Every structure is written in structure tokens, then in C-alpha cells.
């Protein structure tokens, strides 16, 4: 499977009468987008706003972040199984609006998470302070259940990103990256002397607001399975996860999975990126056992020399992580795990909810309980009404001067467990 990613650099987003990309600027006709969103009768109103890097803007509560992309060549279409029909993606050509993102906000339930600050100290902790963001704020029809509303917002955000991505189809990319993924046998013949490396990606799959969709399938209903890493770049994995803002994977994280990128960077040089495995994080312990058994079985069957395991979310996924790690180590395959820590505000509490001596190679995305004060910001997109309810916030966390004292777990993507950021802890 070979995928060419053509990156069209976007340096700004502006509202205009005509939706188009010109000179690196994404012009957006909000009316057109509104029509697309309101096709879903469950959404009663939608608002659009723009947040640019460096602006004194705070976006909250963030639900998902999506990068606009579109298929140019090859099978299937973007966001298969949810926005477009089910068909295998991951080959041919895809155009990316690099530097742009769709950020969805909305109140699904009465406690809300996810802050993106476009400037100040908070901006250092979220990758989405560096993207030009089209913020989409949805209001539901009355009497919608949380399940219905969650789905409506999720799909509408993807539709907006899909529509914007389409604008780049006929543009010449500023930069093209090529990712090639071979079959097991072929890969071994190509790189007989390189260690065979896999990626085991754990996906949040616990229930309402905690789900991930793969080609439209709710991952908690799936066994551990495999796909090509290039499929992930074409939106095969989509976030339905609205909790634990700091260490959930937004759809943008899936589209730009850094483990996949960095394994491809070494592919054919120091290692052979042979397989990608996706597994779930269910609440029932029998599911945890079964899924981690299955990860280890696949790793063993594929005869991998080493794997990177990435986690998603807080708490019980620590158990899945350690199960995956231990069972895979016991097949004789070396593991490195990526996680984050909840070591308390002082940094002195136990960091993880599970541990094992076989987990001897761990990369941490930092302590999510670290407290920081976000300065007053000129403009809020969304609402601060729920600030004291934001994860890591506490009563009075919204100060009189407009600053907010929070744990960094309230910031979208702050301790992402794909290793998206530079933050670490010792």
C-alpha cells in the first residue's frame, strides 16, 4: 500500500462569499457550511468562528479537532464508514490542509472539558494553538438525548472538515510525503536484516463519550485487529471520545499519528515497520483479558522483534496497558509503552494505576496534575460557564481577574499518549 500525502500549507482562515483556497489562505463561506450542518435535523443552530495562532482567544469546551483532508486518488473516501461509504482507504493520493483545523465545541453533558488557548502559557501545552482553527459551535434540538447529541456533533464536525478538505483537491501541494507499507512477506524480503517492528495502538472504548470508531465500527464491539498505518491517515480511525481532554486522541491526532510518522521515518533504515495492531480499552475485565491476549497472539504470530504500545485516557486503561505490555513481553517481543502520569499536584503520588517490572521501557507525556494559571484572555469562543467543572478545575478556579487556575489535564492534547508533544517528566 502506498499513500502520497500532499500538504497544502494554510497560513490563515477568513470568512468570504466563496469557499476556496488562495495564496495559502482558506476562505470559508459560513452559510454553505451551515447548510451542510443543518442537514441533520437534530442540530438546531450552528455558529462559526476563527481562532488564529497568537490571538488572545480561548476555545472551550472542545469536543474534537479534525484536520481537513480529501482523497484525490485511490480507493475509498475520507472518513469511511461515517461520512462516506465503507471502502478501504490508505492508498493513492490524499491532500491535507496543513495548518488548518476544525474545532468542535458544544455542551453534551453538564460537565465539560477541553481548553485551547491560542496565546500565553496555555498555548505551550496544546498543539492546536499552532493551527488556524475554524471553530464550530453546535446547539441541539430540544429533548435530544446525550447519545443522539454526541453523535450529531461528531458527524457534523467531520462533515465540515470533509467539505473544507474538498477545496484542496485541485491544488498543487506545497510538499508531498510518500508512505509505503508492504505485505509481511514482501517487507521481510526487502529488509531481511532489520528488526521487525509493530505498533500496538490502544483505543478508548468504554461507553458514551468514551468511544472510538474504526470504519464506523464502535471499537468496544471489536476484537483486536490490524490495519495499514496509511488507512489511519485517511480517517479510518475517528474519535468519539470527549473526556480526559489532555490524554484523549482527537481525530486530528489519529490523522497525524506521530508514532506512525516516526516509525515510517526509520522504516527501511534502522527498522522494518511491519505491522499495525489496534486494540480496545473496555470496562469489563474479561474484555481486557481477551483483547490483550489477542494483541499478544498477533504480535507473536507476526514474529515481531519489538512494538511500541500507546495508551489513551486515564485510569482503567492503565490496566490494559500493563496487560498488553506484559503479555507481549512474554512472547519474547520487546516493548516500549507510551503513557502519561497522574502523580498529584505535588508530583509525589503514585503515577499509574498499575505496574509491572516487565514494563521497563516507558515514555511519559508528563504529569497531568501539574497546576498552571492561564492568564485572562480577550475573547472566549464557546463558554466559560463550566470552567469550575472542567477536569482539573475546581470551585473558584475562574479567578476574578479572568485568569483560570487549572491542572493541565483540562487542556486539549496536553499529555497526549501517542507522544504527540515534547513534554515529559522525571
Amino acid at each position, binding site marked *: 500500500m502506498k499513500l502520497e500525502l500532499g500538504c497544502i500549507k494554510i497560513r490563515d482562515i477568513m470568512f468570504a462569499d466563496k469557499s476556496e483556497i488562495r495564496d495559502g489562505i482558506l476562505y470559508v463561506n459560513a452559510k454553505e457550511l451551515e447548510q451542510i450542518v443543518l442537514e441533520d435535523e437534530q442540530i438546531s443552530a450552528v455558529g462559526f468562528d476563527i481562532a488564529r495562532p497568537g490571538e488572545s482567544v480561548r476555545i472551550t469546551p472542545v469536543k474534537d479537532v479534525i484536520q481537513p483532508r480529501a482523497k484525490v486518488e485511490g480507493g475509498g473516501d475520507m472518513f469511511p464508514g461515517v461520512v462516506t461509504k465503507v471502502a478501504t482507504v490508505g492508498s493513492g493520493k490524499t491532500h491535507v490542509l496543513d495548518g488548518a483545523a476544525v474545532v468542535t465545541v458544544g455542551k453534551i*453533558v*453538564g*460537565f465539560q472539558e477541553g481548553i485551547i488557548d491560542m496565546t500565553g502559557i496555555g498555548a505551550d501545552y496544546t498543539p492546536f494553538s499552532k493551527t488556524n482553527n475554524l471553530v464550530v459551535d453546535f446547539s441541539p434540538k430540544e429533548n435530544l438525548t*446525550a447519545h443522539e447529541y454526541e453523535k450529531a456533533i461528531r458527524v457534523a464536525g467531520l462533515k465540515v472538515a470533509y467539505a473544507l478538505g474538498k477545496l484542496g483537491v485541485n491544488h498543487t501541494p506545497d510538499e508531498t510525503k510518500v508512505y509505503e507499507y508492504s505485505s509481511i512477506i514482501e517487507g521481510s524480503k526487502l529488509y531481511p536484516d532489520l528488526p521487525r517492528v509493530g505498533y500496538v495502538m490502544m483505543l*478508548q472504548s*468504554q*461507553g*458514551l*463519550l*468514551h468511544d472510538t470508531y474504526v470504519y464506523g465500527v*464502535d471499537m468496544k*464491539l471489536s476484537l483486536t485487529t490490524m490495519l495499514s498505518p496509511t488507512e489511519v491517515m485517511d480517517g479510518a480511525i475517528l474519535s468519539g*471520545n470527549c*473526556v*480526559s481532554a489532555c*490524554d*484523549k486522541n482527537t481525530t486530528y491526532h489519529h490523522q497525524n499519528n506521530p508514532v506512525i510518522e516516526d516509525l515510517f521515518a526509520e522504516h527501511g533504515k534502522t527498522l522494518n515497520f511491519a505491522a499495525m495492531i489496534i486494540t480496545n480499552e473496555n*470496562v*469489563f*475485565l*474479561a474484555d*481486557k483479558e481477551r483483547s490483550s491476549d489477542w494483541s499478544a497472539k498477533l504480535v507473536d504470530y507476526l514474529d515481531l522483534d519489538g512494538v511500541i504500545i500507546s495508551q489513551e*485516557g*486515564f*485510569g*482503567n*486503561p*492503565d*490496566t490494559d496497558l500493563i496487560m498488553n505490555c506484559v503479555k507481549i513481553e512474554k512472547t519474547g517481543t520487546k516493548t516500549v509503552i507510551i503513557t502519561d502520569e*497522574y502523580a*498529584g*499536584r505535588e508530583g509525589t*503520588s*503514585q503515577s499509574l*494505576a*498499575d505496574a509491572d517490572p516487565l514494563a521497563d521501557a516507558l515514555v511519559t507525556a508528563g504529569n497531568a496534575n501539574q497546576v498552571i494559571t492561564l492568564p485572562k484572555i480577550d475573547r472566549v469562543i464557546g463558554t466559560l460557564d463550566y470552567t*469550575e*467543572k472542567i*477536569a*482539573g*478545575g*475546581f*470551585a473558584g478556579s475562574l479567578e476574578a481577574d479572568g485568569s483560570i487556575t487549572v491542572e493541565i*489535564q483540562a487542556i486539549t492534547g496536553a499529555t497526549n499518549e501517542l507522544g504527540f508533544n515534547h513534554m515529559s517528566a522525571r
Partner: protein
Amino acid sequence: MELLITNNPLAKSMLNEKYEVIHINSDLVGVLIYCRNKIHEGHKLLTHPLSGSIKPNENPYKSVILSKKTKETDTQSVKIIEEAIITAKKFPKIHINPQYDEDYRMIDVSLVVRE
């Protein structure tokens, strides 16, 4: 019947037929401690006590499903419940707005219902 240990009235009304529901009038840690004692008596954890990625200080409700009583104490359950109690206790108390009680209850139940 398997046991559902909960402080969530919604869990009781929704799952009363499927499980033997034991409703505990306590905070989240109290539910975990009750589960721990049951585990010591030979019940096994069927769901992870840190269900959901909502932090233990953000949602006051907790439902945990335990197996029928067995003769053995299940090591894994003992470890998981101990770690869960340690984890739950390390989060400081924050203000929880009773206005959203319904949401809290619904989220908690959704995590232990198999669809």
C-alpha cells in the same frame, strides 16, 4: 446473580433485573471500599472500578459489577481494587454541581451497560 454495587439510583432502576443491585449510600470511595470487602470475601471484579476516563473527583457516582461469590480470593481483583482506591483518594475534592446530577448518573450507567 452477579452483583452490581452502586451509589447511583439510576443504575438501580435500570439494571435491577439483570443484577442483584446493592445500593450504597456513600461517596465514590465508599463504593470502592464496599467492593474491596466483597472481593476479600471471594467475589471477583467483572468491571474495572475506574470505569471511564472521567476523574474520580468529577463524577460522584460509581457502579461496579462483581461476580457471584467464589471460594478463592481473586488476586487480580484484589490488586485492581487497591490501586483504584489509591487512585481515587489522590484526587482532591472539587465542587460538583448538583444541577448536572442526571448527566453524572447517566454517564456512570452507560459505562457498565453492554450494548
